């Protein structure tokens, strides 16, 4: 029989099989076309967020599935773990899907796969971020074509990511030339600056091209207009806004640079187009403009976790029972021979009493729990709003934990401080991330997102007016005016007015909440308390949930800085 298969028949069988396999693979690959672009200007930095855009084509109508990004952490010499992020789940269509993901280790390949509902991979594309890697945050230039340093990345306005944290790896963002960012892109840029980004805007006679309400809000000068200088040259002029400084002016006074702090970040406006600037001017401006520095609240988050009370029964209960029980037993042993009945009554009475007390002391609310979580976040709200979150975890034993977040907002974990040859896999779905915690392991995750302001704050001659459109009464709020902190009474829904008195310097203020105080101090320099009016709303609550043997205690602390209007 085997002999018969040899020869022509065998060759035919082999060819048919190969043809079948080839056609099957062609059919599968024809199902979905996938194109992926990663990074700002296709550049990524380890431990920083990066935008990922996945363009699908040739997707059959009504195809349900998910787009999953998988990365490996570590290197071949250490433990490697797969981090997955589902950037979209639902009905797939021919369009571009964008998300902002943390880049764990750009030296490892990154895979983007399109999966059906059963988890079968319809199509997978592997990227090599090694070729896109930058060692640290880099300057990005949008519009002009000059370079500030060797690591400069040139980008188009269309490459500005959807989420502000997509610019996490950008040290300075320069905009000018023929770049015309869309309204959404300006919003992203404004939020990024609010969070700590450093923006340099170059605009000379081409100011009309850049001009937009969003830009005017960001600029350190008010009422910008083009004026003609002697010799027929044009430049943009305006009045410096409060807090803005004239940082540079060239010798011929044909251009100047003004800068100011905007939220946690900085905006530098140069009244010259890129064509009017020499390389030396560009380098001078580059060194003068600050670098992006998004304040981390890791310290406050760790403090919030560290100061949480451990749930347990009263520590001295067992020693006290030991003492009382021993006494009862000794009495029993002493009088047991002479007065046995009394001895038994006393011993049984003591045991019953101690048992009842034990029952109370070990009631359910006193049962030990195995997971402590502190979710700390800071929101900075002005015209735009951003939120920076830090989730700290500590588990007594190995277990799964979950971090809830908004769709597409994936947490980035501080690996260096937490991993010790253990499983540190992270699986992110659109709205939650699952992590496996090891016993006695502290783990921290940073999370960025947008934030919308609901309050409207006006300060005028020692009197504050706050519009609270929500239904909830705001219990803990203070107003910071000219570096002084004024405690406010509960702010009810609707319009609230209060006359300020008895303010204390910010550095003397204490809210009695460790994390809140730490954040308020940390942000004193970042947000320039001396120059603006800030309503600071604090919210903190703790919840304990139990399910069978698992229990977790979560402390959620939020400090919201709302920029007020001063008249």
């Amino acid at each position, binding site marked *: 029989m085997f002999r018969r298969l040899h020869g022509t028949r065998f060759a035919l069988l082999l060819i048919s099989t190969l043809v079948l396999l080839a056609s099957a693979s062609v059919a599968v690959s024809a199902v979905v076309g996938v194109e992926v672009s990663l990074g700002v200007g296709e550049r990524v930095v380890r431990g920083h967020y990066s935008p990922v855009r996945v363009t699908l084509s040739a997707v059959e109508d009504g195809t349900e599935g998910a787009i999953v990004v998988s990365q490996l952490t570590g290197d071949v010499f250490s433990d490697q773990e797969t981090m997955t992020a589902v950037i979209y789940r639902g009905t797939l269509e021919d369009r571009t899907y964008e998300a902002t993901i943390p880049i764990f280790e750009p030296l490892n390949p990154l895979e983007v796969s399109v999966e059906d509902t059963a988890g079968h991979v319809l199509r997978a594309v592997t990227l090599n971020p090694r070729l896109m890697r930058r060692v640290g945050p880099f300057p990005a230039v949008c519009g002009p074509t000059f370079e500030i340093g060797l690591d400069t990345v040139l980008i188009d306005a269309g490459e500005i990511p959807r989420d502000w944290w997509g610019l996490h790896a950008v040290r300075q963002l320069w905009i000018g030339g023929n770049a015309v960012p869309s309204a959404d892109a300006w919003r992203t840029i404004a939020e990024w600056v609010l969070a700590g980004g450093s923006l340099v805007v170059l605009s000379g006679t081409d100011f009309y091209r850049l001009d937009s309400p969003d830009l005017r809000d960001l600029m350190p000068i008010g009422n910008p207009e083009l004026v003609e200088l002697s010799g027929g040259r044009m430049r943009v002029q305006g009045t410096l806004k409060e807090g803005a400084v004239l940082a540079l002016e060239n010798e011929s006074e044909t251009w100047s640079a003004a800068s100011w702090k905007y939220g946690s970040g900085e905006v530098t406006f140069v009244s010259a187009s890129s064509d009017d600037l020499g390389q030396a001017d560009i380098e001078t401006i580059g060194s003068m403009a600050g670098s992006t520095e998004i304040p981390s609240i890791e310290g406050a988050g760790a403090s919030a976790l*560290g100061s949480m009370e451990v749930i*347990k029964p009263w520590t001295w*209960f067992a020693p006290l029972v030991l003492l009382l029980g021993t006494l009862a037993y000794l009495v029993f042993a002493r009088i*047991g*021979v002479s007065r046995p009945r009394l*001895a038994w009554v006393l011993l049984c009475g003591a045991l019953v009493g101690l048992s009842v007390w034990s029952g109370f002391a070990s009631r359910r609310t006193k049962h030990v729990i195995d997971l402590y979580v502190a979710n700390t976040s800071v929101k900075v709200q002005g015209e735009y709003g951003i939120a920076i979150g830090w989730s700290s975890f500590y588990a007594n034993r190995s277990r799964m934990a979950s971090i809830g977040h908004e769709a597409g907002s994936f947490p980035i974990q501080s690996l260096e401080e937490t991993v010790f040859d253990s499983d540190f896999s992270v699986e992110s779905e659109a709205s939650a991330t699952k992590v496996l915690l090891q016993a006695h392991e*502290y783990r921290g995750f940073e999370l960025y997102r947008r934030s919308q302001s609901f309050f409207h704050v006006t300060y005028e001659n020692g009197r504050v007016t706050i519009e609270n459109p929500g239904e909830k009464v705001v219990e803990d709020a203070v107003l910071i005016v000219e570096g002084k902190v004024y405690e406010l009474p509960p702010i009810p829904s609707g319009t609230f007015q209060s006359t300020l008195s008895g303010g204390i310097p910010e550095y003397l203020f204490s809210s009695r909440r460790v994390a809140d105080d730490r954040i308020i101090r940390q942000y004193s320099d970042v947000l320039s308390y001396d120059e603006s009016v800030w309503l600071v709303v604090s919210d903190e609550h703790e919840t304990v949930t139990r399910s069978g*043997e698992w229990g977790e205690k979560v402390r959620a602390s939020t400090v919201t800085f709302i920029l007020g209007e001063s008249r």
Partner: protein
Amino acid sequence: MRSTERLTEQGGWLLYLGMFALSGLALTLSMPWAATVRELITFPWKPSPLVFFAVLTLMAVMVGLNRGSTIAPRGPLQWRQVRRLLGHILFAHMLTVPYLIFARSLLPGHVVKIPILTGYSILVSLAFGLAAYLRQAKRWALGSEATGLNYVLAILVFALPLIAWLATGSHWQHIALLSPVGTISHFLGENTLPWSLIGIAIPLAAILFLMALLAIRMRRWAR
């Protein structure tokens, strides 16, 4: 002799006190001492009441051995002496009831394990007590005096399987079930119920065997 005297004769009262005190000490040490999570990170605490139940069982075995050899008669063997042995063991466990109730705060979601482990402790204690009873009765019959060998053997039963397990690694991990500490550890672990049941069945089988032996000896004595 009054029941109180029988309970406390030949150093019994000290053993009950020892069991009560050492179990209480183990329970105290099983509790998390940290008041804040910061202290918990500095001084990690494993949520396991293993130490408490291990000490409880070990001390129960000591009580069983002492009571078994104390009750052992110089004359014929009797079932009521076995009942008395069981009574003494139950008395020792009765003293620890406040601890057993309090221990539930260490075992959230697994409160049912506490009566099972208490029952296991009673079984192990009874098995060792019966063994001591039979051995001592035989020694009386042969005219020998009591020795401390029972206690040494008991310690070996506790320790040897654990040493063997540590020496052989995970391939022979179930050998640890021969030690009461191994069984308790298994039972307090996750997804180990079938093997834990085998561990719990071991003292039960030993009791049945010793009872059969006792019955045979009683019959021989009657002849």
